[in-house]
């Protein structure tokens, strides 16, 4: 598939989503809204994991500060419930970026599993603050955000709110897509593939990784702002380790290094979790099984499925020229 065809098909799916979902039941609308908030978070993880080769286990921290900022401003100062909501969006991204800029100073020095451990530890610091800083965060009880912003558009209406989150989701997808195709984004791929060579080619790889980390933090903060109004309750549960792990698994499930894969992964995880949990008590095993099967049989994620299919088909036809094709296709997942 050519690049243009890919863009057209993603745009088509987005349009279909925007048309069908608002006409579905309110449960589906809410579910999709939640999934899109997490899709933004998962895409920010993908920027690090899929494009830069950094497996961040602490993305919930930036999500959390964005969400807490929104909740605290709304509940304690009644700020961000009118036009100033847009200001809160900017502040949420800024606080996510600022926290990432601080954490990045510690984390970017490490790589591989050490990077993972450091981001995990820093993420837990934020969780600890949310849990213990009672006067600000409400501790274990969290903060209730009872009102959604109303600036001409009444966002208390679930369907109107869906369109707002959808717009943010689509904009994030487009912005991140431009980013990963830009000279800067392509240099991240080089760092993922071979960092030492990049240094010898004249790249300050530390700086490139640091900038990518901050951008991912900003999008994490944005996802948090939207989540605060989606969920209505912000508690330490929001910044718990599971949130980070979930976002990482969404990326792996959908396919790292594809952006769209992160969104698909988020959709599948939410759908499975919400639907299955109403049907069977053992839904977590089903989710776990999906993860295991993906990692075993589709290491490139669901986005790598078409290539994998062609590879299998090419290998079974025992045609030397065909299998050559399959080899080429299999190596082009991203």
């Amino acid at each position, binding site marked *: 598939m050519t690049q243009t065809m890919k863009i057209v098909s993603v745009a088509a799916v987005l349009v279909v989503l925007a048309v069908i979902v608002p006409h579905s039941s309110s449960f589906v609308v809410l579910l999709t809204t939640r999934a899109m908030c997490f899709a933004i978070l998962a895409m920010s993880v993908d920027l690090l994991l899929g494009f830069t080769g950094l497996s961040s286990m602490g993305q919930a921290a930036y999500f959390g500060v964005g969400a807490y900022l929104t909740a605290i401003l709304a509940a304690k100062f009644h700020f961000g419930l009118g036009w100033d909501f847009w200001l809160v969006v900017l502040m949420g991204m800024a606080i996510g970026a600022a926290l990432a800029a601080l954490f990045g100073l510690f984390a970017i020095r490490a790589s591989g599993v050490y990077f993972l451990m450091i981001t995990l530890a820093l993420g837990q610091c934020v969780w600890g603050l949310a849990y213990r800083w009672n006067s600000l965060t409400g501790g274990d009880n969290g903060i209730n955000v009872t009102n959604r912003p109303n600036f001409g558009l009444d966002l208390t209406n679930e369907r109107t709110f869906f369109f707002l989150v959808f717009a943010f989701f689509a904009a994030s997808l487009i912005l991140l897509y431009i980013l990963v195709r830009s*000279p800067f984004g*392509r240099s991240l791929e080089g760092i993922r593939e071979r960092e030492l060579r990049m240094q010898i080619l004249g790249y300050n790889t530390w700086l490139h990784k640091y900038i990518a980390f901050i951008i991912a933090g900003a999008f994490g903060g944005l996802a948090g702002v939207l989540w605060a109004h989606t969920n209505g309750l912000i508690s330490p549960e929001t910044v718990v380790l599971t949130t980070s792990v979930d976002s990482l698994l969404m990326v792996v499930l959908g396919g790292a290094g594809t952006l769209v894969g992160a969104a698909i992964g988020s959709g599948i995880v939410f759908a499975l979790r919400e639907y299955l949990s109403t049907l069977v008590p053992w839904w977590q095993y089903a989710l776990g099984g999906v993860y295991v099967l993906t990692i075993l049989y589709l290491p490139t994620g669901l986005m790598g499925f078409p290539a994998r299919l062609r590879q299998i088909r090419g290998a079974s036809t025992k045609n030397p020229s065909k299998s050559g094709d399959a080899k080429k296709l299999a190596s082009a997942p991203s």
Partner: protein
Amino acid sequence: MTSASAIGDAPVLELKGLCKSFGGLQATRNVTLRVMPGDRQAIIGPNGAGKTTLFNLITGIFPVTSGQVLLFGQDVTSWPSHQRTALGMARTFQVTSLFPKLTVLDNVLLAIKGLRRSKFVMWRFLSSYKDVYDKAYQLLENAGFLDRKDAEVRNLSHGEQRQLEIVLGLASDPKILLLDEPAAGLSSGESTEMAEFLMKLDPGLAILLIEHDMDVVFDVASQISVLHFGEILETGTSQQIHSSAKVQEIYLGTD
């Protein structure tokens, strides 16, 4: 291809009393070396003599224990690698060090962008930079890679990958190129090709070469230094090195 082309020329690379220890092991001992513009120098020595370590010191991958590295007259001893590259130095690696999952074209594009400010641009597609692409096509055409530009590097043959290593080194328009065993793992036919490829490069480009393949060394280099246990034992023309008794003993005669 004469050494020290003109008197009064500043050396592109100068090493002064360079030492490196890893714990108790002295990998580099008091190496002093001078490369003039357009020089073709080779460093030979048995395995473990510290040749690649020396390159890692010159390019800033390892910090030096003592001594100085001067690049175009500037003391770069404590500079990080990417800043040394910006001055006009490039290197290739003994173990092929390309971007295996990217295409040949993407590899070269990354190499060209390394020294351009546009590497920080995030709001424009890379494909909109026509000058970068033109240069990449030019480099690939000169190296005879244009027909394979969309192949993924991991699907290239070893010999092709070794050549692409050098193309990546040339992409930043360096004034000095450090080649770490460009002919490593090549068949004798491919080595000859490699030597021809190297001799075709711009005569103004200084080359410092590590190589085990003596045919390549004698073809390409006009001056050879012999490294043994981290120390420069002897420096001379290929004739002198060829007939040196000391070199025979430690290098050519040991196996």
